[in-house]
């Protein structure tokens, strides 16, 4: 009971840094590729000589251009291109038909209490009509950050499991996971189209590894916050055990879901969510640390 539920999470830090490194590497390779092409084409048309002459006029010989100057320029371009890519991330929108949770629903009070325990603002709770039990965070820029719960989850999960799911989503809200995931996924998409395939695959793998780690971190934090790892595990089992075609396309609303929408389509390297067994392992460790 002595662990603080929202303290540092070194595993998450490592996964995020790996994903960021993957993105930076992809950008670096792409910039290097483009840069070398420009230089080669430039040399062919005498551009290089003209530029050299220009520098001479300012009193800077090419010979005085140190290697670290080139390196700094290169890094500036890499960072600039990365930032531009990150800013191009699509804007998420609230799924149609997502109405506010009725004011007298007991889940509201659970949410307020959890938010109070975690010392964070209470997010807006919405319901979307979808028979598959799931929940996700939508950070539509026109609306306050919302946790959207499917009608299937409200109908099939008992109160303690709903609370556990909510605590999991609150972690995503508290850590801005939707924003980061959306941006890194966008970069992975750009890399997929532009970068050499081995680089694109590396980026995708590192971004997805981070997403899986964020899910595990959210599970751990939620179990510590509620003190109920078993309820969370039951919710994971119940939600991932329901198969069918979801009404809400999670990719469209660009969100982080409690369980993936629809069937898993990736390989273990590129899945967005950890397996139920991996989540159970994390929750078992929480249960041990809680002394239950």
């Amino acid at each position, binding site marked *: 009971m002595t662990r603080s539920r929202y303290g540092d999470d070194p595993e998450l830090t490592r996964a995020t840094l790996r994903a960021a490194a993957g993105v930076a590497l992809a950008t670096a390779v792409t910039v290097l590729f483009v840069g070398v092409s420009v230089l080669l084409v430039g040399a062919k048309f005498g551009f290089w000589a003209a530029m050299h002459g220009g520098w001479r006029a300012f009193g800077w010989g090419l010979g005085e251009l140190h290697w670290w100057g080139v390196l700094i320029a290169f890094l500036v371009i890499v960072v600039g291109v990365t930032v531009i890519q990150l800013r191009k991330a699509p804007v998420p929108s609230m799924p149609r038909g997502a109405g506010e949770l009725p004011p*007298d629903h007991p889940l509201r009070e659970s949410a307020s*209490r959890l938010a109070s325990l975690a010392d964070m*603002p*209470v997010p807006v709770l919405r319901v979307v009509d979808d028979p598959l039990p799931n929940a996700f965070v939508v950070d539509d820029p026109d609306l306050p950050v919302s946790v959207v719960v499917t009608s299937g989850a409200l109908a099939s999960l008992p109160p303690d499991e709903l609370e556990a799911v909510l605590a999991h989503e609150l972690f995503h809200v508290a*850590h801005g996971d939707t924003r980061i995931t959306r941006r890194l996924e966008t970069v992975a998409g750009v890399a997929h189209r532009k970068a050499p395939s081995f680089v694109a695959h590396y980026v995708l793998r590192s971004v997805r590894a981070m997403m899986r780690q964020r899910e595990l971190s959210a599970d751990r934090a939620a179990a510590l916050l509620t*003190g109920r790892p078993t309820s969370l595990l039951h919710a994971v089992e119940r939600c991932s055990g329901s198969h069918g075609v979801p009404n809400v396309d999670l990719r469209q609303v660009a969100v982080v879901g409690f369980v993936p929408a629809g069937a898993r389509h990736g390989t273990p390297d590129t899945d967005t969510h950890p397996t139920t067994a991996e989540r159970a392992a994390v929750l078992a460790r929480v249960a041990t640390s809680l002394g239950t």
Partner: protein
Amino acid sequence: MGFLDSLLGRSKPARPDLDQLFGLPSAGVTLEAALDFRSTGTGSVAFRAAEGRAFADVQADVQALLDAGQGPKVEVEVDSFGYTWLVCRTDPPDLSSLVTDLHAVNTTLQDSGFGPTLLCSLASFTDGTRTFALVYLFKRGTFYPFAPAQASGTTVEGQAPQKRDNLLEMQLRDLLKDDLRFEPELTRWFAVWGAPGLETRT
């Protein structure tokens, strides 16, 4: 929380702030002078106990912890949301010693590593007909009033409709704003229906 913190999965753990509790006695004086509300002598502390522990264990452990620090006797109750409430009573009603007891319970729980699981403390007041609680949020170090409205009529399920007396709550905030630090975000004024320690006279 900065961008870097969210990128790296860091956020500062919430630290309970207990000192504000000692503002309650002066608020009690103001309340009695202005609205004739008096302390019922009852208050409670809510925290989240981990699953799987037998209720009797939690009760015994908490009382053992309190006894070790010469703390007060408490009654233990669990509400429908899964929170454990430790109820302190003073008879005859004495707000100052109630606050001392609540502070002792909080400090004991905090020192035993339950700090992050502490939800709120409350002290209840009544004017003979209406009852309300001043709820203290640990993680914020702020107070808010929770006033259940008088039950009138019943719903289809036969339960009294749960309504808050928002007018009284706002009145209390205006009256006590010099005595206590109030929670500025109204969304954090969560309801504590039927909370143990909140005496409702029928």
